[in-house]
């Protein structure tokens, strides 16, 4: 799915590379995003330690400052350790993976649901549309964090539950966007032409309407992934997110937050920097994408 996503983005950006990379910020953002994604993907290869494997942790190594080594000197904790003796660097890499995959999976599933609902509503019109859209409004009239909090309160904690909550929080957003796009696309004459040519409805929806409704979503979804990462970390921070043994960036920060004032800044500072880096680079890339793909701003 991720690959498809990247492929479509690349397709859309064809020939607009120069416009996209119009300054150092774009290079830095795209570069660091790429780097972070690669780091997350290969966390288990790169990370000096598997922070989820309790056997590899030693609480005797707890709360060591950056640059300390293990008891036997076999490994250096470049970014220090937390109170469990978890290597912060490894924690960040794995946490990055958790945060990213939670966000991406939730976003893609939500997007898929949103696309189906949105297109269906736009095409069906009438009562079906009214009901579906009321449902969407219903969902959207409540801020995401509240909905997520309530859901987490109701479901309990856990990775899968976070994903579910994030999907529920997001799908409506996509549904509304897609419906908007679909309505405006359906009003375009190429859809009329397809109908006039006697093509069956299914074909018109899937071959004509759908492909034209996806691109605007891509831009939104990049930004949405960033938002989702932040939302997930906020939930984890509030204590209703991912489980403690498989920390995401947000949970690492929350854990380290307690040690911030005592001078053991590294436990939450570095995960925080990593979170900021990933979110900011996704946002920057999304921003450039939006500018590049926005026909109104095209030169």
């Amino acid at each position, binding site marked *: 799915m991720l690959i498809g996503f990247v492929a479509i983005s690349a397709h859309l950006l064809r020939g607009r590379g120069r416009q996209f990379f119009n300054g150092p910020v774009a290079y830095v953002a795209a570069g660091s995003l790429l780097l972070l994604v690669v780091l997350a993907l290969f966390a288990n290869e790169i990370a000096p330690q598997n922070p989820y494997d*309790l056997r590899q942790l030693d609480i005797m190594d707890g709360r060591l400052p950056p640059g300390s080594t293990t008891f036997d000197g076999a490994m250096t904790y470049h970014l220090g350790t937390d109170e469990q003796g978890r290597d912060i660097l490894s924690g960040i890499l794995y946490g990055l993976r958790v945060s990213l995959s939670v966000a991406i999976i939730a976003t893609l599933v939500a997007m898929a649901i949103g696309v189906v609902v949105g297109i269906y509503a736009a095409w069906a019109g009438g009562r079906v549309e009214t009901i579906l859209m009321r449902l969407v409004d219903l969902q959207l009239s409540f801020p995401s964090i509240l909905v997520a909090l309530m859901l987490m309160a109701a479901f309990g904690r856990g990775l899968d539950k976070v994903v579910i909550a994030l999907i529920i929080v997001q799908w409506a957003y996509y549904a509304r966007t897609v419906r908007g796009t679909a309505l405006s696309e359906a009003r375009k004459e190429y859809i009329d032409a397809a109908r006039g040519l006697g093509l069956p409805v299914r074909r018109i929806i899937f071959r004509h309407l759908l492909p034209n409704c996806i691109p605007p979503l891509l831009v939104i979804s990049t930004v949405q992934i960033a938002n989702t990462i932040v939302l997930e970390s906020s939930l984890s921070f509030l204590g209703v997110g991912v489980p403690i043994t498989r920390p995401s960036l947000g949970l690492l920060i929350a854990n380290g937050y307690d040690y911030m004032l005592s001078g053991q800044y590294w436990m939450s500072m570095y995960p925080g920097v990593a979170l900021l880096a990933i979110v900011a680079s996704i946002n920057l890339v999304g921003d450039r994408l939006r500018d590049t793909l926005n026909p109104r701003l095209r030169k």
Partner: protein
Amino acid sequence: QDLRIGLAAEPSSADPHFHNLGPNNQLRRNMFESLVGSDEQQKLFPQLATSWRPLDDTRWEFKLREGVTFSDGSAFDAYDVVYSVCRIPGVPDSPSLFTTYTKAIKDFEVPDPMTLIVHTAAPYPLLPTEFSTWGIISAKANGVDGASIDFSPEGCGDLAYPESQAFNEGAAAIGTGPFLLESFRRGEGIELVRNPDYWGDAAPWERVSMKPLTSDGPRVAALFAGDVDFIENPPLQDLERINSEGGLQVVQGISNRVIYLHMDHEQEPSPMITGTDGKNPLKDVRVREALSIAINRDAIVDRIMGGVAVAAGELLPAGMFGAHEDGAMPPAPYDADRAQALLAEAGYPDGFGITIGTPNDRYINDAQVAQAVAQMWARIGVTTEIDAVTASTFFSRRNAYEFSVYLAGWGAGTGEMSSPIKALVATRDGDRGYGGTNRGQYSNPEVDDLLTKALATVDDDARQELLRESSRVAMADWAILPLHFEVTPWAMTDKITYAPRVDQYTLPASIKPVQ
């Protein structure tokens, strides 16, 4: 002189009888006193009663203090005590009544207003202790003529009682304590002022404001920023910094709260154990011992608790009633090799899989401690996972026996060994109120007998010996694995000082300015 305190937990009401909960009980002690007081070590001392003694097995006589007045000016007498006991079972919407501590009372006798005789159904040595746990309110202030009360445990007839709300608003907050409640603002703070007519030594503070700062970081930040003079429970990791910062200091003392692991002694298969073909290895005493000695308690105390805890060998710290002398009941020695050998002997040479249930927001570093235990068990081949959830979920699931091993804590409210033994290891028995929190369903008739005997022995020395014996038996059977006793820290400016309390309460009247 003013004192500003940062509270770690907010009381849910100013009503002394509304909620039997730590923060509420702590607040209560400022305004409402009991017949019997309990000191830093939870030793009893005369408060509104000047003395007490058993008349026989089922009758206790309390001599009350003369010349005590409530803050509305009315004089304190034995009827106020009866009135308070009458109110306790009927507080509307109370999530946790104080009846736990009054149910032993069968009847009252008031030979004269300054003498109170209490009848119990059976010998009840804990009566004075229990009389230290609830506050006394004024009958007269609520328009009740004390002499007319017809007491019975089922109810005292139609009496006028103040509403909980009236305490929060201040109207009903009429007590005999060192402080008067000026305001109780939910979420924002509680203001106390000195009771000028207090019968004892006047409180050292003209005014005390207590702000709930329930998150650790902000609470300690408030101390650093000089917004408060005193905070409860500074996070362990910040103690060093507080001490090294000029003008601040930490005071700490062991508490009556033990952190323990309880194991499933009953279910087979046990819900969170894998790799044993449905057998419950925890039923084997060798396995229990192995699990216990696989835990490096000192490492946990040192690393996770920042040295601010004491490794535990039984359920109550040394020096408290029913606990052993210091060193007589040491923590289980850490010996991973022997643990592995024991496992093999028990038929689990390759270990098994287990999940520790733990709350993550209830005790100091609770989930982290569980993680550390998991690390250590993993090293002897017991693959351990952590199921850390918020306290509310944790307790519900624990009470539904969803865990094979769980981490929890127990604070001995009465300050003696009978409390943890009765709650945690005695065989579950609703009628006798045994094993209320024995969610590992441990059962050992020998322990039960010793406890029952102790609870009916009014003689303190004999009772203490019985309680020590019961603890010895339970520990020898590895019934429950005590990890450590929490040490309670308080942080404050160096202009004031505080004597640490085992019950973890923060009592402004005992916070003293340094000369």
